[in-house]
Every structure is written in structure tokens, then in C-alpha cells.
């Protein structure tokens, strides 16, 4: 895994003419969600996906992680079409979804255990990581003894231990209060800069997307036929103040305006 710098032209995730519809049991018909979607995501990119609720953002993640399969088209991960994508990318769900009967360290060890790493070996790997995840001394606490921010960090630690270079984060901070959310966003950016990973973040918070992402994809119509793409005109490293630049403020207003027009009520 020793890569020198970012290989901007190396595609890690690629959608090729992907279509997907789910079957609505109540109405007995299939509802199209995605149609003819093409996406390229490159190595060590930070991608944000924004869109109103019910716009198919979660469906996109279910497709990438392998919980669903496309009706048409192909999905490439690290340049290959995987027969079974389950276990190929790291997925961090919206709720922390920690197992209440496992301690912090045991929860984090889950993906390693599933790969056949022995318990003691897994714990040895995790202990040094707890420090940078702000969880030092918490390894033997149970989830209900942690704050919301800590739970999310355990969840992210678990996701990053999947060992995959593609991490999918599904509105990870939506349940947190505003202050905690801000510090978690800064923390996540630091983590991403340290790790050699591509992050895809689903969010409905436009500022969050602008602050964190290199590129933003916008889901507006239903079904989604094409993705609108926005390049965030900010360099790295970034600080929260950068969001106050006039160009960013007007971009933010544009995005909010677009989303507002499309809210499905």
C-alpha cells in the first residue's frame, strides 16, 4: 500500500451506465432510482454527495457496498468488476451501529475478526490508534457510556479498519450537535489527509460538503439521470474560515437554491 502522493488519474471507483430500481412491495411495481449513471472517483479524493432525503443517496451506497446489485451497467472498484462487492469497501452507517455488548476495542476489532485476525492480534493493532481517535483510556467502555461524538469516532475507527481504500460515510454527523459536528468535521479531514483513502461522504449539509470535499455530486431529480458535479475551488489544507470567501458563499447559496427547488415533499 505504499503510494507516493496522490495518483489523481487512478480510478478507484467507477460507475458505468448504472441503472437501479427497487421493488415497491406495497404498490407492486418497481420504482426507478438511478438511470444511466456514470461516475468516476479517483485515488485519495474526497467526494461529497448532497441531495434531499429520498433522492437515492443511500441507494448509491448500497450499490457500492454490494448490498444491492445494479439492474444494468457495471461498477468497478479499484479497476475491477467484483463479482461480490461485499467486504470490498468500508461503510460507515448513519447511526453509529455499535454493538452494545462489545466494548470500544471489541467493536473496533469486528472487521479484523471477520478477516480472521486473532483477537489479541487485533487488539494490539487497535490500541495505538485509540490515541489519534480521541479514545485513549476508553477501550473497555461500552457504547452506552460514550458521548455521541465518541461513538461516531469508534464507528469511523471500525470503518477505517476494514482495510479498504474506499470509505463510504453515510451522514455520519447528522445526529450530533452543531459544535461537536464542527470539530468532528475538522478531525475527519485530518484523518483523511493522514490516510491513503478515498472518502465518499453523503450529507445534506451544504457547508459540510464545501468544507470537506474536492468535488460535490448533487442528486436532484428522481429518478437520477445525471449527476451534477461541482469542483470546490479551495486548496488544502483548509480551515473553517475558508468558507467565508465570497466565491464559496455564492457557491453555497447556489447549491442551497438548487436543492430547495427539488425537495420532494
Amino acid at each position: 500500500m505504499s503510494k507516493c502522493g496522490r495518483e489523481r488519474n487512478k480510478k478507484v471507483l467507477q460507475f458505468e451506465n448504472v441503472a437501479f430500481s427497487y421493488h415497491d412491495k406495497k404498490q407492486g411495481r418497481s420504482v426507478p432510482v438511478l438511470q444511466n449513471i456514470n461516475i468516476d472517483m479517483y485515488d485519495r479524493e474526497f467526494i461529497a454527495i448532497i441531495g434531499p432525503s429520498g433522492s437515492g443517496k443511500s441507494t448509491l451506497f448500497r450499490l457500492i457496498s454490494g448490498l444491492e446489485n445494479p439492474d444494468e451497467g457495471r461498477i468497478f472498484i479499484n479497476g475491477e468488476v467484483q463479482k461480490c462487492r461485499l467486504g470490498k469497501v468500508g461503510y460507515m452507517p448513519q447511526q453509529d451501529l455499535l454493538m452494545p455488548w462489545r466494548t470500544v476495542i471489541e467493536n473496533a476489532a469486528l472487521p479484523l475478526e471477520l478477516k480472521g485476525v486473532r483477537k489479541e492480534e487485533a487488539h494490539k493493532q487497535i490500541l495505538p490508534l485509540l490515541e489519534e481517535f480521541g479514545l485513549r483510556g476508553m477501550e473497555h467502555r461500552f457504547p452506552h457510556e460514550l458521548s455521541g461524538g465518541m461513538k461516531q469516532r469508534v464507528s469511523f475507527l471500525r470503518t477505517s479498519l476494514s482495510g479498504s481504500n474506499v470509505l463510504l460515510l453515510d451522514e455520519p454527523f447528522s445526529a450530533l450537535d452543531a459544535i461537536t459536528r464542527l470539530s468532528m468535521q475538522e478531525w475527519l479531514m485530518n484523518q483523511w489527509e493522514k490516510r491513503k483513502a478515498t472518502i465518499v461522504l453523503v450529507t445534506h449539509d451544504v457547508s459540510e460538503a464545501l468544507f470537506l470535499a474536492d468535488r460535490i455530486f448533487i442528486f436532484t431529480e428522481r429518478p437520477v439521470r445525471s449527476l451534477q458535479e461541482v469542483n470546490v475551488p479551495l486548496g488544502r489544507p483548509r480551515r473553517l474560515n475558508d468558507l467565508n470567501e465570497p466565491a464559496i458563499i455564492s457557491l453555497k447559496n447556489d447549491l442551497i437554491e438548487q436543492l430547495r427547488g427539488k425537495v420532494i415533499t
Partner: protein
Amino acid sequence: MKKTEGLGPAVLLVFLFFLIWEMAARAVNMVFILPPPTGILSKLWELREPLFAEHLPSTLAVIMIGLAISVVVGAGIAVWMSISSAAEKALYPLIISSQMIPIIALAPIFVLWFGYSIWSKVVVTVLITFFPITVNTYDGLQSASKDLRELMMTMGAGKKEIFFKLLLPAALPHFYSGLKVAVTLSVIGAAIGEWLGAQAGLGYFSRRMMTQFDGAAVFAPIILLAAIGIVLFILVKLMENKSLKWRKTS
């Protein structure tokens, strides 16, 4: 802490109950029908030899064998139903309706089949104790979060891993709830089994003393039966606290 504080009123009430009983029994003064609690205790002491050496071990054997079979069969059926929907469809309604059969009325047939051996009593015990274990364990296995299951799948977990790392731990608290109900029922099961036909056992002894109009000797083994139930319940509670530490600390 909270628990011991909470026991005070209950102890007081029980004490009061026995006090009134004692006074009423002395007033009525018909020991063979209403023996006073002190009379029962002295009878317990008097009969300690046959009760503790012969009848208690006999009943305990029935209870322990019955519970062991119930746990294995009950949890086994629950697991089977949770992994096979065909088994669930076939068995679940049967298990529910098996509880509509009055087992006490059915019990004589077991004496016919198994004679006066220990097995006729064990069967009665199993039949009333497996139900809470099966139903609770099954519900517990169903209770595991679907989101967690999907999350494990995205980590590449197979069916077996999902079962052992998710379904089983999620079901454990429910299993213990079932087991707590089962241990209290097991005492009843064993006693009923012994009434129908036995050569030893606390239930058998109590019934035999009834035919001899010895009120205190009817009650003495019942005290022991109740004690068995309470001790078993506490044991299960301790086991539960030990294996569900994550819940206790909340």
C-alpha cells in the same frame, strides 16, 4: 444497592403475613388443617432425615434433568426456526398450541408410558419449561438489528459469522428472561409429576402426608420446593449479570 433497599417492605410484609398466620392458627387450634408456621418449621426439622436425604435429591434430579433438556431442546428449536423459515412456519404454531393442552391433565399418560421412573416426571417438567425458553430465545434471535446485519455484510461477514457475532449476543438477554420463567415453572412441573406417581420426591411426600392428615408435614416439603425455586432463580440471575455485564452498568 437499589435492590437490597427495595427488599425491606417485602420482608416486612412476609413477616406480618406469617405473624397473622401464626396467631390465626393458634386461635383455630386444628393443627392437622392449619398448622402454624412455627409448627411447620419444627416439622421440617423433625423430618430432616427423609426430606433432605431422600426426597430433596430426587426432586432436584427431576428439575435439573428437565431444565437441561428444556434448555437444549428449547434453544435448539429456537435456533432452527430462526435459520429456516420452513421450520418456523411448521413449528411455531405447534409450539404455541402445545401450551393450550392442559399438561396436568395429560400427565397420567406419561405415567402409563414411562411408569414410575424418573422420566415420567422429567417429561412433565420439560413440557412446561421449554415453552418460555423457546419463545423468548426465538424472539431474541429475531430482535437483532437489520442495519447491523447489513453492516456486517458490508464487512464481508458470512451467515455463520452473523449468527455467532450478532444474532446470538442479541438473543442472550431474551434467553435469560425465558430461563428465569422456566426455573420457577420447573418446580411446579416436578411437583405435579410426582403427585401422579412416584416413590420419592418432595411433591410425592407432601401428597402422602395429606392422606395422613398431617398438615405441617404437607407444608414442610412445600417450603423446600419454594426454596429450590428461589435459589435457582438467584443462580440464573447471577449467571445473567455475569454474562451481560454491558447491561448491568447502565
